[in-house]
């Protein structure tokens, strides 16, 4: 898929995110907007997957796990736009009897979701398990996961980081959304983590820096490089330097839009900044 086409999808995904969150006056737009390019690049270019015939086991397919489940708007939009389920279902987000729960779950049978997430720190372990199952099944497809940078404060992450290199889980690409923000402020203010890249390197991972985590071309190059490094005894960490709230000017550069919804006026402003390319749901 061409760069222009991917960019058009990103624009539509951003519209979906702000419309979903606005409609129920709740949800997490900031991190969702910041990860739009990465997830579009994964699902529309890099992953080998079959949206129309969703099977939990994903044999012969690449699998993605969202660990920071609060950015559910972006994964729901990307899954729907990729064809996992009808885009009309996006309007049920966070409503009663919906399959699109506030945080993703397998409980409601939503195609494309393979694990519940929301309570932070668990997705990397699950991804390691799925990567191990792939090895046991002699299935040479890859496992992807996305973590938030604030999420790295959870201890389980480091149990998993240690395990993945010690046990040579080399069919796994774990991306970290480094937006340097969390609910109470900047990650440096809340609990400074120092150099995340140095930490992963110290744990013997291959580390790839994506300094423009909202640039499709840079993401594309990084994913191509990451895939090329798999199979060599080491897991790969992709550090995506993103802007929380990217694509909506008044949401950028602040942690304040982590978990609040735009009002009517703000919605119109956000939509005016992101062209309707594929048709709103």
């Amino acid at each position, binding site marked *: 898929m061409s760069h222009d086409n991917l960019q058009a999808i990103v624009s539509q995904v951003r519209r979906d995110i702000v419309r979903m969150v606005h409609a129920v006056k709740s949800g997490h737009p900031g991190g969702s907007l910041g990860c739009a390019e990465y997830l579009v690049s994964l699902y529309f270019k890099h992953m080998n997957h079959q949206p129309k015939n969703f099977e939990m086991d994903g044999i012969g397919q690449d699998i993605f796990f969202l660990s920071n489940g609060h950015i559910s708007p972006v994964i729901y939009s990307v899954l729907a736009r990729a064809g996992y389920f009808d885009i009309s279902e996006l309007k049920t987000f966070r409503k009663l009897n919906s399959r699109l729960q506030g945080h993703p779950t397998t409980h409601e049978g939503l195609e494309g979701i393979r694990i519940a997430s929301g*309570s932070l720190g668990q997705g990397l372990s699950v991804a390691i398990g799925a990567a191990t199952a792939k090895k*046991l099944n002699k299935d040479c497809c890859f496992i992807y996961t996305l973590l938030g940078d604030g999420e790295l404060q959870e201890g389980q992450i480091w149990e998993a980081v240690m395990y993945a290199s010690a046990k040579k889980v080399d069919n796994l690409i774990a991306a970290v959304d480094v937006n340097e923000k969390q609910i109470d402020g900047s990650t440096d203010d809340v609990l400074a983590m120092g150099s995340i890249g140095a930490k992963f390197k110290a744990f013997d991972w291959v580390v790839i820096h994506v300094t423009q985590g909202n640039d499709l071309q840079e993401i594309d190059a990084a994913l191509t490089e990451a895939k090329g490094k798999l199979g060599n005894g080491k897991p790969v960490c992709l550090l995506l330097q993103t802007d929380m709230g990217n694509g909506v000017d008044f949401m950028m550069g602040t942690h304040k839009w982590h978990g609040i919804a735009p009002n009517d006026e703000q919605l119109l402003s956000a939509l005016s900044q992101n062209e309707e390319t594929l048709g709103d749901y």
Partner: protein
Amino acid sequence: MKKYSDTGTKDTRSGFGAGLLELGNSNKNVVGLCADLTGSLKMNAFANQHPDRFFQVGIAEANMIGIAAGLTIGGKIPFTGTFANFSTGRVYDQIRQSIAYSGKNVKICASHAGLTLGEDGATHQILEDLGLMKMLPNMVVINPCDYNQTKAATIAIADYDGPVYLRFGRPKVPNFTATNAPFIIGKGDLLTEGSDVTIIATGHLVWEALKASEKLNSMGIGAEVINMATVKPLDEKMILNSTKKTGCVVTAEEHNRFGGLGESVAQVLVTNTPAPQEFVAVNDSFGESGTPTELMVKYGLNADAIVLATHKVIKRKNLFRA
């Protein structure tokens, strides 16, 4: 009354190890994970014979639970092994989100449950695990009574598609159930028949219930002993059928009286046919160091305690009837 004899004491954890080894040979999707307690969990034989399907995760139980959940995606049937305390309380949220809520086919296998862990003391003697696990929607909770039954339960849960908590212990205890008797999830075993009291026991307390029933029999009290290995889903029919006959119940378990088998039985009784009940269980306290036998005496978890509870509950039944 039907007599049961001890065919030789064995630890229930060895029953787990034997069952897992048999599964390893019969079901290629079965995988084992252990958090640095392979010998204690008796998982060595499986690990040695199936090294490609055994994962040593180190002292990192949260990660083990997550990896197990992930392994199911790809059709594996993971059996995780560590002490009961580290299998439940330590990793409750991981089990809740990544296994129970996500509906993953993971078997959480927990040894050294309860007071009979012994000298290590209260930090390791979890008495709350049945309650923690039974509260999770759709979690099956099993606490078999001896070596044979633990082995059978281990084999049976591999054929059940869904999360299971399998609880067993450290000490050698009488092995008295039939060799190779099939284990049916959710089904109690009526061990003795009687018309004066129903004794519903789980785990190590089942043998104590049998000893109690012999003592009671010599006093002219007929006890119906039920081995309730599956704490959830509970065999309500067996409880109600028996209670209809006896009119009173004693429950016995190596667990806090809050959250355990006794509470589940009480709920069945009060919502159907209320009957007086006594609880042989730990009275809302932590354990301590000591030998398993000393601890079971001190905390009132043995045949004598069941006999006492039976006298109490029959007295109350008679008061109600009068």
